């Protein structure tokens, strides 16, 4: 690689020296554009930046294109030579280098023409030089520019007006072509993402100014002021700026690669808990960067919020880069396609961040599992509540009614027994009594499963009833709007917590009274049961409360028990209800 580049550089310097010699030794009466200084400046810029790009990005055509353009530029200076054949050759290829410039602008940053339009524009550029050759076949002097120029050896017929017309046509079409290219570049800029703009800005700006100066030169040529030096000078200076702009972009990328070191330092400080996406987006210069993590169990990528991520395909205008660690996929970076032209940077960022990404992946997996678990607990509670209601309804509509109906039949039987039937009557009475007891037990059972008042009248009424039936005197303080019904699961969780707490207070607290309060404020139901007993209730106060704590937590709430010895027990449940 290196010897080849050195050879090219050597030839380039020789060509440059020759071109400068020609520019410096032209006869005084000949036009002086671009002159030795600009010849060196533009040529050196193209050659130097081209070689540097070639070396840095051998897979990218832009380096070789710039070097070729540099040679074409130097070759164009052959038109300054006094010998007729050299002059003729130089005049024929004088502006070929402009093709290189146009290719550079249209294909930046990938080095390939992105579409049919761009290829067509390149073709149009080439055809202009055919017109130039036609003009030279007809005209006696190259471009009819200087009376003192050497002979044009290509001339076949002498038809100066025709040659002039062809050259005017070339200028006209050239102006149109350049304008179209400026529009194409401007449109590309307009549609670009921030990351793409960042990557191409200096080149597009320098390129558009250069093309505008070229169009200006062509326009003045058309208007009959072909030798005006100013626009051409501007054009050459800005031409020198284009390779420098390309170089600038490459240097910027090198700087970005330097930022990877900063990224490593940043990610290495666990106390700061950096926003990984933010840090990577900054280092890669792509604010639209997204991260998704590999979930091996689901065999898919999931974002930080736990949503499954669909990987983009070519049509989406997004690209993806996969991150692996020890051969296992851990994450994918979804980014602007422009980063594909800077694969080395992306790869080094991925390498630097892979440990942090793996950590983040594990956390995301944990978060997803937790939210899955939470949802499954909530579903369980919901299912349990629905089941309770169903069982209560079934008992009410089925067994209870059948038993009542049997009681009615027994009552009828009893009434039909003759008064003297003393053997059967006590038996029937006994059966009725037993049935009454069974019905009472069933009633208590269904009430325990799902208190009808809770379903029918809501939490406030059910708590009121609960306190009235409590074994210890219970004072109820309600801050609930009776007409606002809370979600079923919330109401029944709160009800059963209060019920269990009242039972515990009566059984274990040795207190004289209980205070129950419930309030619903800003989406949170708070239930508190406080007794004046001996306190010292261990843990969550037995398995009954543990189950209820699970229930409350499944609804995203919290159950806390505070029971200092000698100072009563305070049980508090907070349940969110949106």
């Amino acid at each position, binding site marked *: 690689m290196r010897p080849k580049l050195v050879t090219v550089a050597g030839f380039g310097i020789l060509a440059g020296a020759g071109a400068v010699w020609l520019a410096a030794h032209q006869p005084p009466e000949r036009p002086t554009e671009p002159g030795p200084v600009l010849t060196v400046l533009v040529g050196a810029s193209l050659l130097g930046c081209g070689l540097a790009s070639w070396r840095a990005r051998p897979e990218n055509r832009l380096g070789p294109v710039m070097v070729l353009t540099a040679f074409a530029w130097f070759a164009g200076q052959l038109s300054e030579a006094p010998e007729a054949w050299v002059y003729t050759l130089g005049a024929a290829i004088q502006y070929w280098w402009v093709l290189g410039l146009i290719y550079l602008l249209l294909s930046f940053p990938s080095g390939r023409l992105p579409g049919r339009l761009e290829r067509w524009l390149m073709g149009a550029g080439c055809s202009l030089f055919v017109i130039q050759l036609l003009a030279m076949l007809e005209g006696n002097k190259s471009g009819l520019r200087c009376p003192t120029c050497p002979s044009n050896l290509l001339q076949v017929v002498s038809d100066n007006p025709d040659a002039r017309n062809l050259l005017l046509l070339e200028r006209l079409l050239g102006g149109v072509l350049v304008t179209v290219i400026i529009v194409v570049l401007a449109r590309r800029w307009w549609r670009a993402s921030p990351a793409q703009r960042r990557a191409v800005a200096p080149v597009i700006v320098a390129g558009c100014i250069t093309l505008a100066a070229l169009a200006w030169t062509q326009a003045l040529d058309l208007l009959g002021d072909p030798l005006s030096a100013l626009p051409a000078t501007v054009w050459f200076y800005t031409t020198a700026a284009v390779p420098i702009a390309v170089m600038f972009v490459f240097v910027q990328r090198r700087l970005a690669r330097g930022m990877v070191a900063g990224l490593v330092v940043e990610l290495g400080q666990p106390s700061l808990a950096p926003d990984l996406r933010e840090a990577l987006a900054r280092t890669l210069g792509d604010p639209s960067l997204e991260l998704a993590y590999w979930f091996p169990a689901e065999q898919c990528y999931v974002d930080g919020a736990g949503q499954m991520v669909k990987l983009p395909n070519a049509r989406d205008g997004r690209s993806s880069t996969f991150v692996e660690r020890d051969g296992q996929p851990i994450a994918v970076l979804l980014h602007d396609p422009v980063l594909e032209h800077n694969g080395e940077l992306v790869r080094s960022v991925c390498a630097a961040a892979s440990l942090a990404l793996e950590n983040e992946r594990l956390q995301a997996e944990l978060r997803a599992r937790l939210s899955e678990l939470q949802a499954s607990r909530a579903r369980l509670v919901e299912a349990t509540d629905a089941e309770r209601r169903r069982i209560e309804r079934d008992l009410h509509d089925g067994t209870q009614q059948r038993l009542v109906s049997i*009681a009615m039949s027994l009552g009828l039987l*009893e009434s039909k027994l003759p008064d003297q039937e003393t053997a059967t009557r006590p038996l029937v009475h006994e059966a*009725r009594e037993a049935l*009454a007891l069974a019905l009472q037990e069933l*009633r208590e059972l269904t009430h325990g499963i799902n208190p009808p008042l809770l*379903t*029918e009248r809501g939490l406030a009424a059910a708590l009121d009833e609960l306190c*009235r039936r409590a074994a210890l*005197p219970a004072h109820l303080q309600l801050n609930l709007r009776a007409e606002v019904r809370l979600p079923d699961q919330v109401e029944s969780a709160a009800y059963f917590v209060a019920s269990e707490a009242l039972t515990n207070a009566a059984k274990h607290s040795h207190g004289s009274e209980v205070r129950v309060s419930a309030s619903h404020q800003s989406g949170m139901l708070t239930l508190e049961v406080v007794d004046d007993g001996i306190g010292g209730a261990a843990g969550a106060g037995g398995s009954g409360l543990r189950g209820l704590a699970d229930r409350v937590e499944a609804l995203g709430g919290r159950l806390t028990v505070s029971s200092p010895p000698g100072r009563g027990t305070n049980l508090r449940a907070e349940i969110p209800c949106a």
Partner: protein
Amino acid sequence: MRVALADDAVLLREGLARLLGEAGFEVVGLAGDADDLLALVERTRPDVAIVDIRMPPTHTDEGLRAAKAIRERWPAIGILVLSQHVNARYALELLGSGTDGVGYLLKERVSDLDELSSSVNRVGEGGSVLDPAVVEELVGRRRQANNPLEHLTEREREVLALMAEGRSNRAIAERLFVTEHTVEKHVKSIFGSLRLPPSPDDHRRVLAVIAYLNSQ
């Protein structure tokens, strides 16, 4: 006495109709839900309407609401609400608007033919009926210290409960195997202890007693 009957469960509706017929009541019609019942009452103007509390469409307290509607439109018609649950709140809601001709009974009570016919008669005559289980809940509630109820004798509490069930002095006397005079003495003593104004009318005192029990 003419009776209209509403219950969504066919088994119980038919059974109860049979029992009522057996007890000598004229069943003027059967209804399966609250709307049917209101239409039936409109058409037949019975003396008593017997209503199941839980009926379609929501299976919660349709019967209670139908009962309230009947009371508003035909105050003379007695209403007996039947429930499978001991629900003091509903009973009190029902009796809150006046105890004349209103009753609340557990369903299984009606299997006792005597109990059924006495309850329907009492409601039909403008008296009131409150299920013993509900009264037991009201009386049996644990109260704060120095509650006047704590000072009643065992016998006085029995009398209080029977009063709350809507029974007359005579019925109480029969139930407790004592003379009516003794019952009167107990009633006077109870009203004194609870600082309630004396109310000789069997019907009206129920409200006073229930209101008292509920307020404590």
